[in-house]
Structure formats: C-alpha cells, structure tokens
C-alpha cells in the first residue's frame, strides 16, 4: 500500500461545502506575527499552508475537529461549526 497525499485522502471524504459562509476566518495581521504557526503542523487535513508571513487556509476540506482553534496561541482565528447540513459527512466514522 502506498502513501496517499492529503488531497487524495480528502478526496475519499464527502463534503457539502458552504460556499457562502466560511466557518473559519483568519486574521492575517495576527497570523503574520505568529512565528511557530502550530496550525500548519497540527491540522489533520493540512489546510493551513504558510504563505508569505501569514498562512493560507482552504476551509473546504475541514474535518471539523477543532485542533486549529486549540493550538492557535495568538488567537488569530474565528472558528465555529459549519451551518447545519454543511461540512464533512463521515460515512464510516
């Protein structure tokens, strides 16, 4: 069995993306001042990618675990669950 990229793995999951309302919003001014950026290492979906001084986030593949919210020491993100019926839908769990 070979390694799978995170994109391949997320491709196995079912998502109903809420295009109108991101459920995680970053404050890039704060992210730019964060040196360790634990979100990059910690996000199980690999959604946080360093970009310049800050980070880029694609909330569409979010597994809704809440890890980023907990590891973000600088309080640079607003996190809530996606609106009802949206987000990931585990078929096995």
């Amino acid at each position: 069995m070979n390694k799978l990229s995170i994109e391949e793995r997320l491709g196995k999951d079912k998502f109903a993306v809420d295009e109108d309302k991101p459920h995680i919003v970053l404050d890039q001014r704060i992210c730019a001042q964060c040196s360790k950026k634990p979100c990059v290492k910690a996000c199980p979906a690999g959604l946080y990618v360093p970009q310049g001084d800050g980070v880029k986030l694609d909330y569409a593949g979010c597994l809704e675990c809440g890890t980023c919210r907990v590891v973000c020491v600088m309080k640079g993100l607003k996190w809530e669950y996606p609106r009802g019926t949206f987000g990931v839908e585990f078929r096995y769990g």
Partner: protein
Amino acid sequence: MSTEERFDAIVVGAGPAGSVAAYCLAKAGLEVLLVERGNAPGSKNMTGGRLYGHSLEKVIPGFWEEAPVERRIVNETITFLTGESAVSLDVKSKQFAQAPSFTVLRSEFDSWLAGKAEEAGAMLACGVRVDELLRQEGKVMGIRSDEDEMLADVVIAADGVNSILAQKADIRGELPAKHVATGVKEVIELPRQVIEDRFHLTEQTGAAQLFVGECTRGMQGGGFLYTNHESISLGLVITAEEFADAEERIVDLVEEFKMHPLIQPLIEGGQVVEYSAHLVPEGGLNMMPSLCHDGLLIVGDAAGLVLNTGYMVRGMDLAIASGEAAANAVIAAKAGGDFSKQGLSSYQTALENSFVLQDMKTYAKAPKFMENHRIFGNYPGLMEEMMVSLFSVNGNSAQPVRKSMLTSIKRHGGFMQLAKDAWKGMRAV
C-alpha cells in the same frame, strides 16, 4: 421550528451520551427533542475505536445482538515501535468475553442508537446547528438555532469535546492544548477473510492494538489499529500541545505510520475509504467543567469524560453512563418540579457514586504521567535494544543477559531514572 412548543428536555448532540440521555428520558415518558448538527446521527462523529460494552448493556441489555457493532475484541496488543523494530505485549483471553468490548464505526452505530431514542418517543431533528443556549437570569431556558428558538425545562449539552455551548455560556474557557489530543484515522477496506487470516480471528472476533514510540516521533500520543468486519481503522493520536514544536505535520506522520514494516503487511492490498479527524479530551479530572447548572447538564466528551491510561482508552462507555445519569436526574427534577442546579444535582451524585467519576479519580494522575517524554521517546528504543539483543545470535561471544540489559538501560537514561518512571507509572494507574 416554532417557538410555541416547549419540551421537558432538549438534548444537543446525537452521539452516544446524547442519544442514551434522550432514550432514557423518552422511555420515562418525557417530551424530548434530540438535536444533531449532522445530516444524520454519527455523520460528524469519529472514534478510534472501541466501545466497552458494560454501560450500554445496562441501558439496553444484550444491545450487541441488534446494534451494528463490528467485532468483539479477543486480542489486545501494545507495541513499542522504533523505526525498524517492534516489541509487543500480546494478550489473548477468553475471559475478555465476560465484559465484552466491540469495535464500532460511528456513522452506523450512532444512527442506530439515535434510532432507539426515536423509537422510544424522542423527536430527532438533524441538520440543525445549535448556536447558543437561551438564558434568563442565569437559568438555561432552551436553545437558539439561527432564527429559531426552542424552549425546555432542561438542556443536556452532549455537543462533544469542543462544547461550544458551554464555552459561549462562560461555563468553561478555551480548551488548553495540553488537555486535548488530535486523532486522525484512515478506514482501510479489506475483505473479511483477509482480515480474519491476518489477525487470526474468527467471524465475529476482533483485535485491538496500541502503539507507542516512532509513530509519533516520540511526541506524547500513540498509534492505534482496530479490526472491523471488512475494514481496519488505523490512526494516530497526538497531544495538541506538541504541535508548537513539532518537526513534521500529523498529515505526514499518519502516512509514515502506514509504511512501518510492522503495519505495512497488515494493510497490504487495502483501499482507504475514509480519512477523518477528531479531538480527544485527555485532561482527565483537571479539565472537567462543573456539570450541573440551572437548567443545564453537561455529558460525554463535553464534560471531558475520557480516560487514557496508555494501555486503554475509554470515552464512549463513560459518555453512555453520563447520559443515563443525566436522564435520571432530569426525571427526578421533573418529579420535584425543580430544575435549578440544586434540583438537578443528583446527576453529580450519581456520577460520583458510579464508576464514571470513581475511575476518573483513580486515573487522575495518568495525564500528568503521560507528559513524561521518556515514555514516547526513550523507552521504545530501550525495549528494542534489550529484546533484539536477547534474541540475536551472531557468533560473537555472548554477554550475560543482565549485563547487556544494564548496558542498554544505562544508555537510555540509567537505572534510577527507569525505576523512578516505573514507580510513577504504577502510581498513576
């Protein structure tokens, strides 16, 4: 939803704690609304995972005969991993059947359990995210979801580890990163027969394996493997605090775990059919919020009810018992017409008199002990060195076992350090 209706109780979250609470309340004839943000119960939930059956057995005797459980665990393994080696403690016993535990997949299992609550008379509303608790003079009066308000005498918060409701109501603060761990899991599909052959199982029996060491690169946490009917659940759990100084992403570590020479042959030919993640509350008693409030009870993961002793991870059995205890407290409060903190306090008493809080207290020192990095970094290497040398014959003059073992121990921190850690470990569990 209309604002006209008023329920005896609203349960937020249709996981094991919430569904059992709703089931017990509905069975006692109370009007219950069970609210779930996923499109179906279980669709937002994930476990490693294994359910210890005792507490659900008490609520629904013989549940496993009808519930969609996967396999009954007959084989427990704990493995110390290094990059090249694995040293395992492997236990098979018929005695495990006396208090059975089962592997489960939550999508199917949670749907079944919420279905039991519905059958008993609870109203299930899916696809509804609860935004906040409604409060009047401090007392919880119901819930708000978007524009809709629903009223009830009591709300039971079974909304999981992130417990946004308790946080928004200032019942608890932010979760500290040292109190939670991030779990990631791949469900790897394999034919039933292949699983049974590889793990030496029969049709209904299963294996549970935990791993310490290389799989987390020595960070606090471990790996897990559980056999389901036609899939293997494989993953990692790492304390969230570790990521501040981590060198690798958890995303990559889980793939490297799959490639380990011990794991690779077990999953060969399999297909990943799902990738999931979840937080695990691992702070033990230290992270528990107060559980009884005016018009509000907190159960399951939201209450921090998880035990991780290193060789055993429990959450769902505690969640189920807390759901049952909360339901009983609400039934008693309704009989007395008092839904204040005082009127609902039998919930706290019931937990204290049951295994739930007694076990949390017994293992109260475990989370602190687990912060010892030697467990995850040093000792797997020590085990490898001692055991590989014990079983190796290479034609060089052999050393007495006591001598080679002492040399290994010296190299990995020394005898006093090992003795101290062993003593602390014994006292922690």
